[in-house]
């Protein structure tokens, strides 16, 4: 039956191409949007992942950087630093703002860092200084390039005109970038000297981040303490929750398109061989055997479409950074598993209609006349 199914499938190469191409493009749609959101979510947690902090301390009840605001008294930094197991604690200020460069504006997550901070700053500098000094800012090089700016040029951040001291790489995404200023400049812009956003903690070499986080939670009032992993997880969860609807719409569109293409081609392929299936029944083939032929054809079509969709998406993912560093596509294992399950459902549903046709097919119809 497998041989017959495969031969049936490859006999009409145009039909196979249309089927595989249609499913491939439909699944590409699903893969692509998933990869874009996964990539964007990865970029959104980039600072958390690359800051060098093991533990994040925020205002009580605040579990994410985005879609929330954390305000802590500056004195909390000292309380955190005094907790056993904490090697170093630094305060940071954080806000979403616009970088105004010449005639363009770019959304940026702006971080204010103490001048002597040993971590929490940019992790990859492609030009200029690694730390912003007073009246200076470090921005992503892609933002600078798009605005025609270089080190030494001036931009407006947090309502202040600052000089570009350095350019970072890998800190921009489709929707925003990251900028670094001194904590003093940030506080001056906000008009608050005694308030910080977060405390970043580096734990001692022989301590675990979760153990120290628990200890800080016990010793410091009015804070929420999470390891960097927990904080990034909450952040990704937030982004995912925000994008679930649109991802579901895209998945549904991809599913329905794929289903329509496979169902139609398998149906036509089955109906066009109706007589041959009738002959097989007359020869003694049972319905179950004929169902297998149809299901195998649907599964193989969808599997080829799945590989095609995955291949196209991986190709786009490989080429995208060459077009724009901000465009990062990430095909995750969960996305692959989800699309594989969707594909299996498409194959099953697509095979159902032709299978029901075969069940009703009378071999008597093959021998005509009377």
């Amino acid at each position, binding site marked *: 039956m497998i041989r017959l199914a495969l031969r*049936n499938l490859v006999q009409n190469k145009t039909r196979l191409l249309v089927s595989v191409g249609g499913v491939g493009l439909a699944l590409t749609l699903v893969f692509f949007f998933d990869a874009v959101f996964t990539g964007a979510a990865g970029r959104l947690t980039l600072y958390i992942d690359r800051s060098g902090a093991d533990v994040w301390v925020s205002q009580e009840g605040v579990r994410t950087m985005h879609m929330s605001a954390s305000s802590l008294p500056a004195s909390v930094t000292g309380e955190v630093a005094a907790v056993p197991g904490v090697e170093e604690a630094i305060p940071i200020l954080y806000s979403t703002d616009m970088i105004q460069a010449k005639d363009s504006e770019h959304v940026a997550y702006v971080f204010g860092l103490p001048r002597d901070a040993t971590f929490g700053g940019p992790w990859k500098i492609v030009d200029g200084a690694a730390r912003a000094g007073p009246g200076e800012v470090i921005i992503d090089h892609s933002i600078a390039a798009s605005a025609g700016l270089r080190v030494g040029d001036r931009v407006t951040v947090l309502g202040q005109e600052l000089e570009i001291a350095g350019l970072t790489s890998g800190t921009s995404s489709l929707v925003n970038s990251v900028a670094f200023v001194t904590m003093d400049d940030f506080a001056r812009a906000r008009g608050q000297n005694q308030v910080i956003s977060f405390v970043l903690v580096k734990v001692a070499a022989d301590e675990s981040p979760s153990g120290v986080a628990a200890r800080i939670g016990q010793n410091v009032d009015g804070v929420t303490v999470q390891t960097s992993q927990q904080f990034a997880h909450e952040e990704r969860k937030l982004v995912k929750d925000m994008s679930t609807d649109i991802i579901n719409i895209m998945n549904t569109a991809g599913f329905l398109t794929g289903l329509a293409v496979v169902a139609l081609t398998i149906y036509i392929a089955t109906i066009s061989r109706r007589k041959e299936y009738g*002959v*097989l029944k007359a*020869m003694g*083939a049972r319905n179950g*055997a004929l169902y297998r032929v149809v299901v195998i054809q649907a599964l193989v079509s969808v599997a080829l479409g799945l590989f095609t969709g995955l291949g196209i998406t991986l190709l786009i993912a490989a080429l995208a950074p060459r077009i724009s560093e901000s465009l990062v596509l990430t095909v995750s294992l969960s996305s692959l598993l989800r699309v594989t399950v969707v594909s299996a459902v498409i194959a099953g549903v697509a095979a159902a209609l032709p299978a029901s046709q075969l069940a009703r097919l009378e071999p008597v119809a093959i021998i005509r*006349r009377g």
Partner: protein
Amino acid sequence: MNDRGLHVSHLTKRFGGGDTEVVAIRDVSLDVSPGEIVLIMGPSGSGKTTLLLMLGALLKPTEGAITLDGLELSALSEARLPDIRMRQFGFIFQDFNLLSALNVQDNVAFAAELAGLGRKEAHKKAAQLLTELGLGHRLRFAPEKLSGGEKQRVAIARALINDPALILADEPTANLDSGHGHETMRLLREIASERGHSVVIVSHDQRIKDIADRVLWLEDGRFTDAVSMVIDPVCGMALQVDRAAATLAHSGTTYYFCSRGCSWEFQGSPDEFVRGAVPERVR
């Protein structure tokens, strides 16, 4: 009664009911011995195909019994019939009905695999059978690359691969030219004589009478006296003398026609038709 062979007893098939009831087969009885070829002829709508379908366990009779090699097919449940069809019957169709996606050898081997034979063994057996039928050089060919005669030989090989007790052929020569038609008839004769298969053929082709052991005339769902049958010299159709639409005398012989059109055509150039077909009694 010898258990071997096909035994049909008082077979009746009705379709519908009440005022719309149609009786396709009426109280037909028939015995076909192993190695015997029975040709069933008759006009369109006479019930030939319905009878063939019932003999092949593709259609349940309303009344009567069909027994093949001692097994009463008409009493078997639907669930058991596919296995019986697979192993006890070989079907040969007018349109050959080969699986277009499979090559010649695969087409024949597929029937054996359906019956439970392993792939290697089925292919070996198929190659052997096809070689015996003169198609050893065509094993890897696609059906579409074969001539009509070759396609029918593949269909015959497929019908024979599971060594069935009964071969059922529906107009096996209808789509073949004269040469390939004779080749197919010779093969069917060999199948019966040398392999001992019973063969039932439903056909309009007069040439098949040459290889048939018996010819039966089916009309209105029952076998009638074949002695009263004659052949229309124009269209070749067999017809009952008393039902001829027209008769004409030519050179001292009376010719019978199925329609006035055939008689008019005959009158235009009688010698052309007389040369090819003299009036003939069906055996």
